[in-house]
């Protein structure tokens, strides 16, 4: 069960941090439809994080609630993937990150639907259709941007160059998903007329707590109000 708790925290941290980055897009999206879509995706991930944290608090024996995980831990205690903590970047960066993360997370959640823990299995079952939508949404944008204008293609290539190395982290975290994830991504790239990036995979991993410099400020902001009001109820 400590393994189960750790898994819930890892996947909860991924979802929370990714949702926080998506929240940063609010009032900054390229069109109104995209404000709605990115918020939808952020809300789905936030919902997943809340369920996963609650489950972690039940099974790790501490009885902590969802907010204890989100607001009372420092960056060194977070286990999210480096992929999701990368700064916001441009819209090509946004959809590329979303494509990589949702493809991987979808593959994982599909398997977790048969996890022996019935609560985690139920969370995964609920997450699968959400993540399919996230992946499709991202893939459609990768298509449009990859096969759009010269500028959008240039930006897509830059975003791929920047984020592709983080696949190394995903594969290290779940080697069994590698083939499936790579197949999906290759299909999307092909459809988008984009070459597969040649990038050295990262060797550090957020799963071991080896975070970059961007996580601490993200959490500083996320936790700021909660921390300046100790003992408050919201």
């Amino acid at each position, binding site marked *: 069960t400590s393994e189960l708790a750790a898994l819930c925290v890892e996947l909860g941290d991924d979802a929370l941090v990714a949702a926080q980055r998506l929240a940063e897009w609010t009032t900054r999206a*390229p069109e109104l439809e995209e404000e709605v879509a990115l918020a939808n995706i952020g*809300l789905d991930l936030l919902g997943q994080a809340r369920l996963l944290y609650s489950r972690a608090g039940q099974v790790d024996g501490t009885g902590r609630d969802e907010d204890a995980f989100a607001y009372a831990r420092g960056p060194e205690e977070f286990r999210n993937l480096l992929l999701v903590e990368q700064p916001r970047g441009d819209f090509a960066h946004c959809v590329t990150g979303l494509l990589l993360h949702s493809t991987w997370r979808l593959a994982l959640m599909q398997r977790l639907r048969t996890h022996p823990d019935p609560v985690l299995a139920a969370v995964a079952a609920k997450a699968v259709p959400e993540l399919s939508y996230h992946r499709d949404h991202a893939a459609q944008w990768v*298509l449009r941007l990859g096969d759009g*204008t010269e500028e959008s293609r240039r930006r897509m290539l830059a975003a791929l160059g920047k984020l592709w190395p983080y696949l190394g982290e995903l594969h290290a975290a779940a080697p069994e998903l590698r083939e499936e994830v790579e197949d999906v991504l290759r299909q999307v790239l092909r459809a988008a007329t984009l070459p597969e990036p040649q990038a050295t995979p990262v060797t550090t991993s957020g799963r071991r707590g080896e975070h970059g410099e961007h996580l601490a400020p993200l959490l500083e902001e996320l936790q700021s*109000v*909660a921390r300046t009001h100790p003992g408050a109820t*919201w």
Partner: protein
Amino acid sequence: MTFDALIARGQRIEPRDDMPEGYRKTLVRQIAQHAHSEIIGMQPEGEWITRAPSLRRKAILFAKVQDEAGHGLYLYSAAETLGVDRAELTELLLQGRQKYSSIFNYPTLSFADVGVIGWFVDGAAICNQVPLCRSSYGPYARAMVRICKEESFHQRQGYELLLRMMSGTEAQRADVQDAVDRWWWPSLMMFGPPDDDSPNTAQSMAWGIKRHSNDELRQRFVDMTVPQAEKLGVTLPDPELRWNEERGHHDFGRPDFDELKRVISGDGPCNEQRMARRRQAHEDGAWVRAAAAAHAAKHRAQQGR
């Protein structure tokens, strides 16, 4: 049936119906201003999504701001039925040639503001908008029905946040009172200038675009809000506020309408910041919209003849 006959019978005007040019123009201006307000109105609260102090509040606020984007979409669509398009209206906003509600030019300084905006600003919006569900123009009236439903939900959530905060720490209660002090008068100004200084009201009421005068709606808001403030345990910052048995309404002080004029004409505390953010998002998004258009064109070319 002619336009005048439809109006006289209280029936709805639909896009295919003939309508006077003045009616069309007034409606376009009003609906566009309303749409712009939804979009600019995302900003004061939007900055607090990343800072919300619990995951539940984060989800509520995220969803609320998303709803505002959705309202903007409905309203731009309603305006499009009158022969203008969204890009054109957005241009007019960015050039400062169309307005948005003055209320969004005030700063949000603490998380209590999120609650007070829900309570006051959504509350005032509801007072303004519920009568618009009976607007003479069909697409606008139907958009308002959906919008009002969501806004009364937002108002309840805002008020509920304040109830929780008032039962919290001393610092939380102080934040709530401070937010109430800052938002009360600007909220009263949301109903526009006083009736004796509102020249277009009569025509709009005759056309069934507007159903009540500014001062009537302001009175309704005050009467609705005073008992809520009492229940919450905050003081509304108006020494003249008291129940008038004779009128059956609350008397209250006169908002500073000079301030309203200043804020509308561009000199509120955050006008420039709000417009700059909107402009930046629009400019930053230009390459994305261009790419989507180019991709769609290629795709059509490949598929079609």
